């Protein structure tokens, strides 16, 4: 079953060339020409394994050698094992579409993606710097508002954002940490350097896939895993728990922490249950909680038990029907008042979405400079803000070259990949951007780096990104790894799981 599914996701190879920007590399000779890598092609994108055709990067040579030893059948067997492991563990996600929902296994590719110690060091420093600036920014816009008065970010972009929560004004959060769990999407560009494509500051998900991928892929390649001195990630649960503990109100000596899930119908319910189990904390739904006398309690079989920290996996709007959406059946009435009074901490804080808006993203390097006086260690991807007339005109004139994104959307919805779009799609976006320029940004079509993926009976390059998970309580901790997302369709640049993406295990190499 998995074989046929895999084949259908790849699409018809005979047609794929038309929409692909990956040019086949013509020269082939020696062992490279035959076997697994026979169809490995190179385009303008950087490859995560090869320096040039047949020549692996130094850190990848051992893995390449190991792969080259294996037959296609052997790889298929191991791939099947990996998929079976996911199926039996129930690691699935839900795809939302127009009126229909589908439950799918998250496709995992067998071949791990390698990251060198030097690359990781830079990423770690860059992401730590970035989250520090973003937390200061959130504290500022919900506090004094200096950054707006100083004109670093236009006030209307923030105050007019539907994600700006007035309820957060003047509310103090422990350590000034608004974003305790951040998932930033990174891409490796044509110059070989990483850039940040997006920050996810609300309820970033996917870390369970990072952990699950590791558990199954290291079993598929046990020897090479040991040999490469891959840095461990299995302490993520402990690190997350320590982060959430650090966010507890000072009063709580042994804080009780609970993960607030929307429930079994949510696409990431598996992850919620998984993380709660990893941390040994309660998995609760809104109806399991109650606020009395401005204190949050959990209903237990032996009465009410005070809760100090909520790791929330539900949207701002739904968290408190007393304050926000009155029709919310998922939230806890009164939790915002208990939060304001400092009786409970909500992590991530409410109202963080205002800072991961795709338009605000464009200002992050300026924010790093403003708050920290430093240059951004990891750059942004060049971004055109359609709210600026000159940039809007450029975008409208170059829709065939750019990727256009709706400012308020995430997960790959409301997006146009210009070079791959039909004329009708481009015309539709022309009208949309002209009518609501404030709601759109555009970026150049990136040649995301490619990594070898096992497809059908061989190994081919597919575009990948990287989502590391950044934990911040009193200080910032990043588990060395992340979720490498793969655009499984040949030539496709869209890696979102909701848009037919898959994932890979990510091996950060030790020094």
């Amino acid at each position: 079953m998995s074989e046929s599914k895999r084949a259908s996701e790849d699409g018809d190879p005979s047609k794929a060339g038309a929409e692909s920007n990956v040019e086949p590399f013509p020269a082939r000779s020696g062992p490279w020409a035959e076997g697994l890598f026979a169809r490995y092609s190179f385009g303008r994108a950087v490859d995560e394994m090869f320096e040039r055709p047949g020549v692996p990067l130094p850190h990848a040579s051992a893995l390449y050698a190991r792969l080259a030893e294996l037959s296609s059948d052997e790889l298929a067997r191991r791939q099947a094992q990996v998929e079976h492991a996911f199926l039996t563990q129930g690691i699935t996600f839900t795809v939302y579409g127009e009126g229909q929902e589908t439950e799918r296994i998250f496709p995992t590719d067998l071949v791990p993606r390698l990251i060198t110690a030097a690359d990781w060091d830079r990423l770690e420093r860059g992401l730590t710097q970035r989250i520090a600036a973003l937390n200061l920014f959130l504290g500022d816009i919900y506090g004094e508002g200096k950054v707006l008065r100083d004109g670093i970010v236009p006030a209307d972009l923030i105050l007019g954002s539907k994600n700006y929560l007035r309820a957060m004004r003047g509310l103090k959060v422990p350590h000034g940490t608004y974003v305790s769990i951040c998932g930033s999407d990174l891409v490796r560009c044509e110059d070989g350097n990483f850039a940040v494509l997006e920050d996810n500051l609300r309820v970033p998900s996917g870390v369970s896939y990072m952990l699950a991928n590791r558990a199954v892929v290291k079993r598929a390649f046990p020897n090479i895993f040991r040999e490469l001195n891959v840095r461990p990630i299995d302490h993520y649960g402990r690190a997350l728990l320590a982060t959430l503990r650090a966010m507890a109100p000072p009063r709580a000596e042994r804080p009780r922490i609970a993960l607030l899930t929307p429930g079994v119908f949510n696409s990431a319910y598996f992850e919620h249950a998984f993380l709660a189990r990893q941390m040994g904390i309660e998995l609760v739904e809104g109806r399991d909680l109650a606020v009395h006398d401005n204190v949050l309690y959990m209903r237990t079989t032996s009465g009410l038990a005070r809760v100090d920290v909520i790791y929330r996996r539900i949207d701002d709007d739904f968290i408190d029907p007393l304050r926000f959406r009155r029709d919310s059946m998922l939230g806890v009435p009164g939790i915002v008042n208990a939060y304001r009074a400092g009786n409970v901490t909500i992590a991530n804080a409410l109202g963080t979405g205002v800072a991961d808006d795709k338009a605000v993203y464009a200002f992050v390097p300026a924010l790093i400079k403003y708050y920290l006086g430093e240059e951004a260690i990891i750059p942004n991807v060049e971004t055109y803000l359609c709210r600026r007339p000159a940039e809007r005109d450029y975008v409208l004139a170059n829709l065939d070259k750019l990727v256009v994104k709706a400012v308020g959307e995430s997960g790959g919805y409301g997006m146009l990949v210009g070079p791959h779009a039909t004329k009708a799609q481009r015309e539709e976006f022309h009208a949309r951007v002209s009518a609501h320029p404030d709601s759109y940004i555009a970026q150049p079509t990136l040649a995301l780096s490619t990594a070898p993926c096992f497809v059908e009976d061989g190994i081919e390059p597919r575009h990948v990104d990287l989502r590391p998970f950044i934990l911040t309580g009193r200080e910032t901790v990043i588990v060395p790894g992340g979720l490498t997302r793969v655009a499984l369709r040949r030539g496709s640049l869209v890696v979102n799981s909701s848009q037919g993406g898959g994932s890979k295990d990510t091996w950060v190499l030790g020094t």
Partner: protein
Amino acid sequence: MHYSVHHVTRFRYSAPIRESLVETRLRPQADELQRLNGFHLTTHPRAQLFTYADDFGNTVYHFDIPGEHQELTIDASSKVDVDRPPTLPEALAPDAWEALRSDATKAQHFELLCPSTIAKDGEALEAFLKETGLEPHACPLATVRDLNETLYRSFTYESGTTRVDSPIEVAIASRKGVCQDFAHVMIAILRDWGIPARYVSGYVCHRPDAILDRSAPDQSHAWVEAFLPGIGWVGFDPTNDCLAEERHIRIAYGRDYADAPPTRGVFKGDAQSELAVAVTVTPSEAPRLATPFLRVLSAAKVAEAASPVTARLRSQSAQQQQQ
């Protein structure tokens, strides 16, 4: 003017409910034109009260009642002293519109210039403006005065045709409504014209000649404040065709009703609720202190006690070396 206000809110439920959580915005504002001499809130069933200042500076009292109950009464009484605001000029400075359009005004009152959930512009509002011929005058003050009066003339006061949070289209279509509706229509128009406007909830003490006031005397009231350059916030009451001066007691501000409801609550249980409200606003004498029963507990004589202190102060001041 001194007022005593008594505001009772009662919720009755068709079946027993539990876990009521209620936020109230019932405490009058305390500022330079309005002194709050006393405020008292009680609930039945009894509850522990908590308070915070929301992002508009309104004082919110909130509480919860965990056990089963079928009725909830909130009793708020206040003593308030309202001064008459300075008399408005005939006209504002000639550059008043420029001042309103300045970046400084826009930055300061950004959210009170944007359409809000209830008070937002739309086709119905545009048609209304066209039909009534309403448009900005050379002076923003004259503009707001004219708007206030036109709204008074254009709408009939009739309760039951709208809800507190009805979109303005409902009132515009029927030309009927109550104070919230008129306030929302006025706010939407002012913002559309670039004049920052905010919703005010509160009470109005009715004029002795009741014909002049349309608003119901036994309910809370709502009106509008417009931000005018050189003056600041000025209250206009389109329901009663007047300025909000010393007859108006301000409780809470907001972008619209949704930010400033007198009560807002949720409960658990499958029941219909019935809301009953009684408001009395009584002009009163200046508050007096009751003295007859004071019992003297310490007998130190004030005049004598003062002198050693004065002497010590003098001696200590004299000792201070000056370099």
